C-alpha cells in the first residue's frame, strides 16, 4: 500500500492533471504532495518499528519480478522531495506568470521517476525510472521558451540519453553474468571477473554523466539556468540527485568489493575536482542562476567523496553513509530554496545578473535572509543539519586514515562561502535611492514566506538529527537487506 502512495499516486495524478482544467491543477498537486508525504511517513513509522524490508512489486518474488526496498534512506530522500515539490507547487500557484497546463503532468512524472529511483533495487527498473525522470524534466525546460533553453535542452537530452544507454550496457553485462536484474544477484559474480569490472565501469560512467559529475558537467549550467526558476529548483535539487544517490547505493552495496583502493579513490578524486572546479566557476559567473547551477556541480562532488569512505566498512562506513545522506537532503532543500529565492528577487529586479540583485533585500528582506540561510546550509555551518553531515564525513575521513579527504570536505565549505556570500552581500548593498523606491514599488508575488519555510527546514532538521540518523540506519547501500 505504501508504494501505491509513493509511485501509484503520482502516476494517477499525472493522468488526472492532463485531463482536467487548469483550475484543478493546484488542488491536485497539493493533494498529491499530501498523499506522498503521508505514504512516506507511514513507511518511516514502519521502518522505525519493524525495520526495512524488500517489497516485491505485484507480490512476485525474485528473480521473477521487480524488487523495491522500503528503507530509511530512500524514505528520507522521498520526504525531502515532497518538501521541495510542495514548495514548487506553491511557487507556481502564487507566481503571476502563467504555468502551461501541459507542465503540471510533467512535474508529477518527474516525481514518479524520483520516487522509483529512491526505492528501486532492480537495475532495469532504475533505467526506465531514470528515463521517465529525465524526459519529463527536460521537457519542462522548454517552458521558458528561449532559444538558449532549446539549445540547453537538446544538449541535455543527448547526453542524458547516452548516459542511460551506457548504464543499460552495464546492466546487460550483469544480466549476462547472472541472468538476473536485482542488485543482490551481483554478489554471485566472482569479484575478479572482467564482466563485473566492465559492467561497474559502464554503470558508473552512465550515472556520472547523468549526475553531471566533473568532467561531464558541462551540460548542467545552461540547462539549469535556462529553465524557469521552479523548474531549475527541481532539476538542481532533485533530478541530478537521484542518480547520484543510486550510484552511492551501488558502490556501497553491490560494487563494494571493487571499491578499494583504486576505483573508490578515483571517484573521490573526481568528486574533489568537482568541488573545486564547480566552486571556482560559481564565483566567476555573471548570471545569478549560473552561480547556483555551478554550485550544484560542486555540491554533488561530496556524494562521490563518500564512496571511498563507505568502502572502509564497519563503523567508518556508517558515519560516511549517514553523512552522505544528510548532505544530500540538506543540499536538496537549500538548493531549491536558493533557486526560488533568486528567481523571486530577479522578477522584482527585472534582470538575471548578479548586479541586478543590488538592494533587493531592502524590498524583500525575508528573501535576502533566505539566501543567507541557504548559503549557510551549503557551507555546512550550524545550525543547519548540513553541519552534522559534514561533521560525520570529516570524522569518517579522519578515523579511516584517509585524512586527505578532510581537505575538500572543509575547503568546499569555504569555497561555498565565497560564492554564496557574494550573492547575499549584493542583495544587501544599498543602491541608489531611485532604485530602492522602484524595487519597493515593484509588484511582487507573496512568495517570501514559502521560500523562507523551505530554507528553514535544514535548521529544523538540525534539532531532529538524532531520529533522522536512526531512520537512515547504520548499514550503507541497501541496508544489508536480503530478498
Amino acid at each position: 500500500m505504501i508504494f501505491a502512495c509513493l509511485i501509484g499516486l503520482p502516476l494517477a495524478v499525472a493522468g488526472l492533471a492532463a485531463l482536467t482544467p487548469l483550475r484543478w491543477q493546484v488542488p491536485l498537486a497539493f493533494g498529491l504532495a499530501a498523499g506522498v508525504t503521508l505514504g512516506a511517513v507511514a513507511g518511516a513509522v514502519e521502518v522505525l518499528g519493524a525495520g526495512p524490508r524488500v517489497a516485491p512489486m505485484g507480490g512476485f518474488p525474485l528473480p521473477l519480478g521487480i524488487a523495491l526496498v522500503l528503507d530509511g534512506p530512500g524514505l528520507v530522500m522521498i520526504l525531502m522531495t515532497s518538501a521541495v515539490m510542495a514548495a514548487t507547487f506553491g511557487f507556481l500557484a502564487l507566481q503571476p506568470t502563467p504555468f502551461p497546463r501541459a507542465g503540471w503532468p510533467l512535474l508529477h512524472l518527474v516525481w514518479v521517476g524520483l520516487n522509483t529511483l529512491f526505492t528501486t533495487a532492480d537495475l532495469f527498473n532504475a533505467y526506465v525510472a531514470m528515463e521517465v525522470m529525465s524526459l519529463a524534466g527536460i521537457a519542462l525546460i522548454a517552458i521558458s521558451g528561449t532559444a538558449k533553453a532549446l539549445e540547453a535542452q537538446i544538449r541535455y537530452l543527448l547526453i542524458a540519453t547516452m548516459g542511460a544507454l551506457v548504464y543499460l550496457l552495464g546492466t546487460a553485462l550483469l544480466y549476462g553474468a547472472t541472468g538476473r536484474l536485482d542488485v543482490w544477484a551481483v554478489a554471485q559474480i566472482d569479484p575478479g571477473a572482467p564482466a563485473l569490472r566492465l559492467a561497474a565501469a559502464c554503470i558508473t560512467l552512465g550515472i556520472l554523466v547523468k549526475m553531471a559529475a566533473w568532467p561531464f558537467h558541462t551540460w548542467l549550467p545552461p540547462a539549469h539556468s535556462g529553465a524557469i526558476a521552479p523548474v531549475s529548483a527541481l532539476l538542481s535539487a532533485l533530478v541530478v540527485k537521484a542518480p547520484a544517490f543510486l550510484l552511492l547505493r551501488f558502490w556501497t552495496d553491490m560494487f563494494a568489493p571493487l571499491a578499494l583502493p583504486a576505483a573508490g579513490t578515483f571517484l573521490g578524486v573526481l568528486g574533489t575536482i568537482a568541488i573545486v572546479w564547480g566552486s571556482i566557476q560559481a564565483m566567476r559567473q555573471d548570471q545569478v542562476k549560473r552561480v547556483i547551477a555551478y554550485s550544484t556541480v560542486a555540491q554533488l562532488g561530496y556524494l562521490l567523496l563518500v564512496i571511498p569512505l563507505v568502502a572502509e566498512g564497519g563503523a567508518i562506513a556508517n558515519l560516511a553513509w549517514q553523512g552522505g545522506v544528510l548532505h544530500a537532503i540538506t543540499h536538496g532543500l537549500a538548493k531549491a530554496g536558493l533557486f526560488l529565492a533568486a528567481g523571486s528577487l530577479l522578477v522584482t529586479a527585472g534582470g538575471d545578473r548578479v548586479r541586478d540583485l543590488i538592494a533587493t533585500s531592502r524590498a524583500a528582506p525575508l528573501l535576502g535572509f533566505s539566501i543567507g540561510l541557504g548559503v549557510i546550509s551549503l557551507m555546512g555551518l550550524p545550525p543547519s543539519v548540513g553541519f552534522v553531515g559534514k561533521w560525520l564525513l570529516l570524522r569518517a575521513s579522519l578515523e579511516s586514515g584517509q585524512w586527505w579527504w578532510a581537505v575538500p570536505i572543509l575547503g568546499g565549505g569555504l569555497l561555498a562561502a565565497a560564492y554564496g556570500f557574494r550573492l547575499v552581500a549584493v542583495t544587501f548593498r544599498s543602491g541608489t535611492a531611485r532604485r530602492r523606491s522602484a524595487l519597493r514599488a515593484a509588484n511582487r508575488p507573496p512568495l517570501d514566506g514559502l521560500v523562507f519555510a523551505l530554507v528553514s527546514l535544514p535548521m529544523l532538521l538540525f534539532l531532529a538529527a538524532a531520529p533522522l540518523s536512526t531512520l537512515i540506519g547504520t548499514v550503507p547501500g541497501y541496508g544489508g537487506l536480503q530478498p
Partner: protein
Amino acid sequence: MSAIDQAEPRTSPWWLAGFGALALALGLVLSTLPEAAHPAGDAVAQNLPATDLGNPVTGVLLLYRVLDTLLEKAALLGALGGVVVLAGRQSFARRAVSLPMPAHSQATASWLAAILLPAVLVIAVYLVAIGADRPGGAFQAGTVAAAGLIVAVLVGLRPQPQPAAPSLRVAAYGSFLGFVAVGLVGAVTDGAFMAMPSLWLPFDLGGVKTTIILVEIALTLGVAAILFALAMGAPPRLGR
C-alpha cells in the same frame, strides 16, 4: 552551404582506433560470459502455466515486470508533454504536412491508402488479440495503428492534429489512467502495488488473463495516440 547539409569534420585515426578498441574490448568481455544463465527466464517458464498466458514475453511485460511497462508509458507521456510544451499555446495554421506530389499521384495515393488503411486496422486488432498467446501485443499493435494514422495524414486524408488535441489526449492519458487504476486496485485486493487483479467481469477468459487482455486493448489505443502525436510533432509556428 545551408545548415542542413553542413560538412562534418574528419574523424582522426586516433578516435577510430579508440572506438575500434572499445568494440573489441566489449566483444572480448562478452565472450567471458557463461554459455547460459537465465534463472529469471526459467522462473518465468515455471510460473507462466498458472496464468494461462501462452506468450512468455507478455507474461513478463504485463505481469511479472508490469511496473516497467507502466513507467515506459510514463516515459512516452513525458515526451508527449515536451512536444505539447514546444508547440506552445498559440494557435497555428492547420498546414497540411502531406507529401508533395502531383495531383494525379495524390489521387492514387489517397485511393490506395483508403483501401489499405482498413487492412492496417485489421492487422493492429489481430496483433493485440493474439498478444497474450503468441508474439504480438499492445506496443506492436499500437505502432501499426499509429503508422496507419501517419500515412493517412501524409496522403492528405486527414488534417494534421495538434499534439494536445482532446481526442489524442483522452486516448493517451485515459488508457494510462486505466492501467494505473488496475495497479491500484491490485494494491487493495492483493495487497501489493501492481499486482494485476483478477477483475470481476461478466465474462472470463481465466482470471488474470482477462485483466491483461483488457489492459492491452487500452494500451494499444494509448500507444497509437501517443506515437501518432509524437510523429506529427510540434507543428510549425506562425510567422516564421
